[in-house]
Structure formats: C-alpha cells, structure tokens
C-alpha cells in the first residue's frame, strides 16, 4: 500500500482501495467490482471455465448484453442474416443461462451498446473498478470509476476470481480550461487531445480530465471524452464525480436507493484528487482554442480543425511519420493541400459508444431539422440503446431525422466496426461519429472521417465535410 497520508490522485485512491494482495515484484491483485460482457470477447472465456471446471465467482457483479453483431434493421426480431453472428448471439445467451448471469436480450427495451447500457442501468458507479472485454470500457470513467478494457484471458480471470493481476499505471492529467466555442463539443475536445498528445501519448497512464471545460460537460459529454481515452493510448480516463454524476445516477435501476444512496454519495464525494497530488505527465489545453475537429487519415491522431487542409508528407521530418502519412493519404484517396471542407462523402454514420446517447441525437436533429440529406448520400442514425431510442422518439427526434432523409435504426454497434450488415464498400467515404478511423474499420477499404454528431449531420446535408458552425447560426 502506498502512504495514504500523502496527497493522492483519484486513480491512486481507487487503486489503493482495491488491492487484495501485493506481490514483492510490484504486481498487485486488484478486486473488480463490475464486469460487463458482450458476445464477441466472452465465448472463449466461458469455454475456458468449462474446460477447467471453474465457476463464476460472483455472477451478481456481471451483466451481459449483445451489441457488436446485432442487426439494426427493424426486422431483426425475425432474422439475423449471418449464421456466424447468430451463433455468437446464441452462445452468449446460453452461457449466461448456464452460469447465471443477468442477460439483456436483443429485443429487450434496455438492449444497446455495453458502454451505454452500463451507465443507463446504474451499473456503473463512482469509485468502482469496472472491466469489459472491450477497449472502450474507458467510457465508464466519466463517473469517477476506474474502468478499462481487457482481453479474453483476463475476462476469464475475472470470471473465476473477481480480480486481475495488474501493475499500477502512471498518473496523467489533461486539463481543459475555459469555455467551449459555439458548435464545439466533447467529441472535439477528445479529438483535439489526441491530436495534441498522439495515439501513444497516454500509454502506461491513466488520464484524469480536469478543468472548467470538463466540469461544464454533461454526463453524456464526459462519457464521449473518456470513451476516447483509449485512442490516446491510455487504458482508462476519468472525471471525478460531482453533483451531475449523482443526479444522473439517482433512481437508475441498479444504483443504490434511499439511505444507501445517501451513504454512497457521501463516500463518492471523497473521491477527488487531493491538492498537491503528483501527476507523472500533465497537459493543458484551452477550450477556446478548440475548433470542430475532423480526421483526415487512418489514425485518430490524424486530426485537424475543419478549417484546415490535408497535410503534406513532405512537411514531416520524422521518417516513420512521413511514411505513415503517405500510406494514410493513399488509403484515404486524398491529395495533400485539399481543404477538408472540399472532401465529398457518401455515407454518414451517427452512432457508436462515443456518440449515440440522447444528447448526440439531439445535436444531429438540430442540424437535420428542415433540411434534406444530400443526393447520393446515405445517412444512418443508430441510437446507442433501446432507451435512448425510446426517449428520442418521445422527443420527436426520429421524425425530424427521417423527414430529412436519415435512416433511423435499432440499437447496436453497427457501422462502428461493421460486424453486422452495416458497412462501407471499398473506397466509400464516411462521416462518422465513432472512434476509430483505422484501415478497414468500417468495412474493408472503407474511408472514415471522425467528427462530432452535429458535424456528421452537417456533412449529410451538404454531401461534403462541413464546418457546422455557420449552419448552427442559421438555425438560431
């Protein structure tokens, strides 16, 4: 244990309170409070348990929901086209039944993307350790939890022991002060940070986001931000819990209730970084400096303000970077020097665990209202969960979007990683609110430009990458 009298970071506090055992070599056995599973990374872990005759240590600490493979079409009750997807979905259900795990079926109103469902159900709580066989588990850090993605062997380890063998990460602080400009969102902060520190900038660290611009974000915005901590190389990102956090959690099905809720809030309030605590790395950004961001390449760090132009590899000194840029431009089919706003798009994807919460759908609807999706553009809106979908429909957002020519879908990961039928064709170019623009991520040969929901909606109606700000002014 570290000296608890010296000032500690939020991460230190959560870590210290979860150490079950410490080995002499610095490896620790860390207790895991919450475990979320989905259909793609869990079957081999269950299989491992069966082969070794091991049991789940604490099934009540788990929830399961299918998301990666599920179709998003309205006829999904009757068919899943891909038999292999069908097998994965059935395997998850059968495993949950056999091992006694709380399972949310595809047709349940609560179904959705794991990282949207966890918080929505109040399963995600401040001060807890949360894992899932999925790198974007960092999302849950928005609640002041230590949440990170793990591989399938670790999924099995948590299933059997409710712990993980880990070494302490380093502390990193990313502070964003000031006020966001008009039309600039949490997604733009997330992308700007990655642009500043690179996709390996956070490797070996846990990021705590601080500063007035972060405090000013809604819970949805904080989830968007923490979601992309992994894209900056950090396994986890976190925002200390505050009144917004407590208000979000109150009354959620799995959150504490009554006296226990009060008791929990009192505890959660203590989970703040102490004055004078040490950070191994610190980065400071000004919110005013952040313009709407768009990626041009095949790594999330290939990002620029929408007002910028496609970079030139010749301007780069570092040989590896130059080679990577040349490769990215070739893959993306872009010429150096082209203004980003002159790049035409064919597909639009508004969805994923980064940007498929109610606030994101509202943002898109503001832009879509009274406009039309451009000719030749196909635009998809995939709510992050059945509950988001229901709320959006209650607010009439689906009507606004469909009237503008957007396709309104059932919840799931969808075109974020193209494991279901929603995918890009080779060379097709997409304005996407997801988190990865890797080669082939949205379908082999597909070209992805990451941006915020409002920016994606703007691209849908103009047919080009577009600076959303003037459109928002028009809208009033």
């Amino acid at each position, binding site marked *: 244990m570290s000296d608890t009298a010296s000032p500690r970071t939020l991460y230190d506090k959560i870590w210290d309170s979860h150490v*079950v055992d410490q*080995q002499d070599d610095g490896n620790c056995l860390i207790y895991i409070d919450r475990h979320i599973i989905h259909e793609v990374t869990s079957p081999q872990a269950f299989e491992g348990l069966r082969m070794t005759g091991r049991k789940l240590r604490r099934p009540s600490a788990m929830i399961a929901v299918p998301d990666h493979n599920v179709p998003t079409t309205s006829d999904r009750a009757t068919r899943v086209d891909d038999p292999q997807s069908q097998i994965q979905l059935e395997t998850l259900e059968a495993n949950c039944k056999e091992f006694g795990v709380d399972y949310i079926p595809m047709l349940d109103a609560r179904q959705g993307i794991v990282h949207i469902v966890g918080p929505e159900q109040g399963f995600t*709580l401040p001060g807890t350790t949360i894992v899932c066989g*999925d*790198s974007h588990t960092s999302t849950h850090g928005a609640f002041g939890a230590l949440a990170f993605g*793990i591989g399938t062997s670790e999924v099995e380890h948590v299933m059997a022991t409710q712990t993980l*063998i880990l070494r302490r990460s380093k502390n990193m602080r990313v502070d964003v002060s000031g006020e966001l400009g008009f039309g600039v969102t949490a997604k733009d902060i997330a992308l700007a940070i990655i642009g500043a520190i690179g996709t*390996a900038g956070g490797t070996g660290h846990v990021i705590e986001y601080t500063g007035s611009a972060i405090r000013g974000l809604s819970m949805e915005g904080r989830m968007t931000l923490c979601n992309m901590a992994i894209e900056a190389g950090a396994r986890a990102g976190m925002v200390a819990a505050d009144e917004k956090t407590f208000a979000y959690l109150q009354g959620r099905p799995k959150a504490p209730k009554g006296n226990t809720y009060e008791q929990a809030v009192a505890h959660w309030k203590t989970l703040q970084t102490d004055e004078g605590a040490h950070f191994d790395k610190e980065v400071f950004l000004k919110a005013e400096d952040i313009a709407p961001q768009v990626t041009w390449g095949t790594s999330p760090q290939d990002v620029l303000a929408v007002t910028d132009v496609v970079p030139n590899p010749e301007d780069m000194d570092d040989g590896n970077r130059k080679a990577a840029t040349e*490769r990215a431009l070739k893959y993306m089919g872009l010429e150096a020097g082209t203004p980003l706003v002159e790049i035409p798009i064919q597909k639009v994807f508004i969805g994923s665990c980064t940007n498929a919460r109610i606030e994101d759908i509202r943002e898109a609807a503001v832009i879509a209202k009274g406009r039309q999706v451009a000719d030749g553009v196909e635009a998809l809106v995939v709510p992050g969960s059945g509950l988001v979908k229901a709320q959006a429909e209650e607010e009439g957002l689906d009507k606004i979007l469909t009237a503008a020519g957007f396709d309104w879908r059932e919840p799931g990961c969808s075109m974020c990683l193209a494991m279901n039928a929603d995918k890009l064709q080779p060379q097709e170019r997409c304005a996407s609110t997801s988190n990865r623009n890797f080669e082939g991520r949205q379908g082999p040969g597909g070209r992805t430009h990451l941006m915020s929901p409002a920016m994606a909606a703007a691209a849908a109606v103009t047919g080009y990458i577009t600076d959303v700000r003037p459109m928002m002014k028009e809208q009033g």
Partner: protein
Amino acid sequence: MEKFTTIRSVAAPMPTINVDTDMIIPQQHLKTIKRTGLGKFAFSNLRYHADGSENEDFVLNKEPYRTAQILIAGDNFGCGSSREHAPWALTDFGLRVIIAPSFADIFFGNCFKNGLLPITLPQETVDKLMDDAGRGANAIMTVDLEKQEITGPDGGVVSFSIDPFRRHCLLNGLDDIGLTLEKADKISKFEETQKATQPWL
C-alpha cells in the same frame, strides 16, 4: 499454455507505426467462438487482395519471412481494440516474439497470456534489428527468455527485460488463474470488508 524457452528463427521487418489490432485481425474474422484457427486471417486485409489472392508485396508473403517466428515492428504496435483474437491469430500464424519500440497496453498484456513474447527496446536498437531483419535468409535471430537476450545474425547480443512474474509464467507455461485461486481466502476477506463499508456494491 505452451512453455516459452528459446526461439531461433528468421525475423521479419514490419516498420509501419501504429499497427492496430483491426489490422492484425479484421472484424470480419471475430465471429468465432474458438481461440484456434485464426492464423489464416492474420493481417488478412494486407495479406490478401480483395479476390482472395495473395498480395506479394506484403512482407509475410515473401520468402523467407513466411515462416518467421520473430517480428520486428514499428512504434505503438497493437493499438486499438482489446481483441485477444490478435495474439491468437499471430501465434496461430506461427509468431512467438514481437520486438518494437512500444506496444499498446492491452495488446501487450494479452500477448503474455498466449505464449507470445512482446519485447520493448529503444528505437535505435529496434532500427538496428529492423535492418538486420531486412537481410532475408540471413536474418536469423535467437531470443532467449531465460537469459533475456537477443542474438543477432552477426552474433551481437542485445539484452531486454521482462516483468519477473510474467517471465516466470511464460517460462513455465503457468496459468495465472490457478495461481490467483490460491489466494481465494484473501479475496473473500476483501469482499467481506467491502460489503461492510460499501453495502451498495
């Protein structure tokens, strides 16, 4: 898990930076419920053309690298998705060692669970090994985990260091779940304390 001792093999150069796990094993091959048989899909979008034929420009399609057990790679190898299908695919393909200036955290951990040894070395050292690997059939290297040494084609030796616990597990082919289960009493004690102080969990 298979024990890891010494690997002697040709080493393949792949200098690309930020090789992500989507590249190592694309999403269309994640629909399996098994850990085995993914080797044929390793790097599939790079290895094969759209019509299924081999891309002869891809390093692992060239002789003598087809049978390489050692990969010399660029910075930030294995970034992105947590999919353990990445090390499953690489080991099934035949790789046992990856040497790079840095690895993404999740991928790095996943390697050890699957008998795949990730070695982090300074950029200059990797650059040198990358050059060595470019020498085709002469690019034979030996990786000795016990001694924590790489011997290059010219007999030059490079030392590396691996977390002692992970090294121990790899050398002995140990299953860490079994080791952790020996601490079941400590886990139970932790749970009791937590239940008393944070009853909402």
